[in-house]
């Protein structure tokens, strides 16, 4: 009886691991609070099992690296303390809830990954990605000067700045 109990009762470590896995699911669903995300990111950093779950998302690797490497080195007036971890969280949520759907539409099986100078590129059945430096420059000018119309103030400017890829 006792033996059975021992075998079936999860250890405190397992309970904690399960808890963080649930948090991971909640994160993907966009249901995790800022404080919980902070805790989850700390747990991922110290728990190899959670790291393995994280690593299952193959495409996230390079992008997370990018997100970490690109963090602003300049202290800023409004920087929140937990921001570094939010970068990971944002990448994770974005990859799992946004990009996957889009990748599925564009035949991910045929996708190949390439590492550019500053950007990670994917080429797929959806068509070649632009790497021509002249086109990149023109695209950047389009984003900066193109009239975003009625949505410019609400999302257009933020979208264009976020898409800034040229060095």
């Amino acid at each position, binding site marked *: 009886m006792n033996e059975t109990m021992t075998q079936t009762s999860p250890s405190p470590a397992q309970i904690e691991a399960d808890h963080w896995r649930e948090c991971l699911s909640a994160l993907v669903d966009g249901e995790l609070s*800022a404080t919980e*995300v902070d805790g989850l990111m700390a747990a991922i950093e110290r728990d190899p099992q959670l790291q393995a779950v994280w690593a299952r998302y193959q495409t996230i690797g390079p*992008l997370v690296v*990018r*997100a970490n490497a*690109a963090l*602003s*080195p*300049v202290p*800023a*007036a*409004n920087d929140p303390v937990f921001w570094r971890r*939010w*970068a990971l969280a*944002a*990448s994770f*949520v*974005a990859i799992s*809830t*946004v*990009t996957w*759907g*889009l*990748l599925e*539409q564009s035949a991910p099986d045929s996708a190949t990954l390439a590492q550019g100078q*500053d*950007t990670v*590129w994917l080429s797929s059945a*959806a*068509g*070649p*990605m*632009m790497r*021509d430096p002249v*086109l990149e420059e*023109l*695209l950047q*000018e*389009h984003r900066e*000067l*193109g*009239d*975003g*119309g*009625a*949505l*410019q*103030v*609400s*999302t*257009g*400017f*933020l*979208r264009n*700045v*976020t*898409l*800034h*890829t040229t*060095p």
Partner: protein
Amino acid sequence: MPHFTPLIPAFGRWRWARWAVVGGWGLLAASAVAGTVDDWLSKTQEATRGRAYTGTLVVSAGEELSVSKVWHVCDRTTQMERVDSLSGPARTTIRRNSEVITFAHDKKIAYTDQRESLGLLPMRWRANGESLDRLYRLREGGVQRVAGHDAKVVELLPHDASRWGYRIWTEAQTGVVIKLQTLDGRGAVLEQVAYTELQLGASVSMQALEQRMKNTDGYVVKPRALKKSTWPPYVRLKPESMLGFSAMSCYQRAETDAPALSARAHCIFSDGLASVSVFVEPIRADAPFTPTQTQRGATQVVTQALGPYWVSAMGEAPPETLQRLSKHLLLQP
């Protein structure tokens, strides 16, 4: 005794009909108020005013993913935003109304710029003053949960195949845009801009943002090398022939730049929602071009030779629109 004659008798089996008519008119009136694209866009723009919020913005364009941290604050006269890139090159961009500065942290360069399209005052969406309802129709969806907020869903769907459609989620109470998808003609998502985390009413100091904007110590300040120019003589300006797109403005490189670059004209067109840039420059023997058609998320790119010019059209519109705009635009010599 009533002082009027009811249109429908208020008794017997007709009572239900009276209420049906009243209810029907009520529904029609409600849809008329909420149903115009122009009205909805005005409310959306108004929602950014007088508010402060911070959030994590994710742009998914094709297979490329970009993430940034956003701060927004606005009072009656000033709108300020700060965007810190978390993917791609490390950048901090701060905007005060139409004034924009971008700190390139790796290069220690601060690029300064004025963006005409970012004025605080309400603007007319279309250059010719026409309603956007002539190009798009509004379809209201339900309420969904996005980034921890209840959000109303609407779709702005094009009347023709010359432009993309949009599905937009706005926070139910404030009207702040939380998520925006650009849709192709079949309704497939081409691109998505979405907050994964949004804190409305966050404490954002406009004074701190202004100080950061002015603090260029350690950075070389570079004003934009482009200047607004007159329209090149080879450009045809007939809005009615351009699929609902109107000519907005034209830019050229400053003359201090390389002569080859200063010969390039950047003509901008908009239908009120979508934007198309057409770059025109003389074909040069020393700079071979290859005709291209490609895409990045909602942004399409079509480059081609037209007469003696190399024309690169790009924008958030179908490639067929870019093709037709390019060909309509240029007066053949």
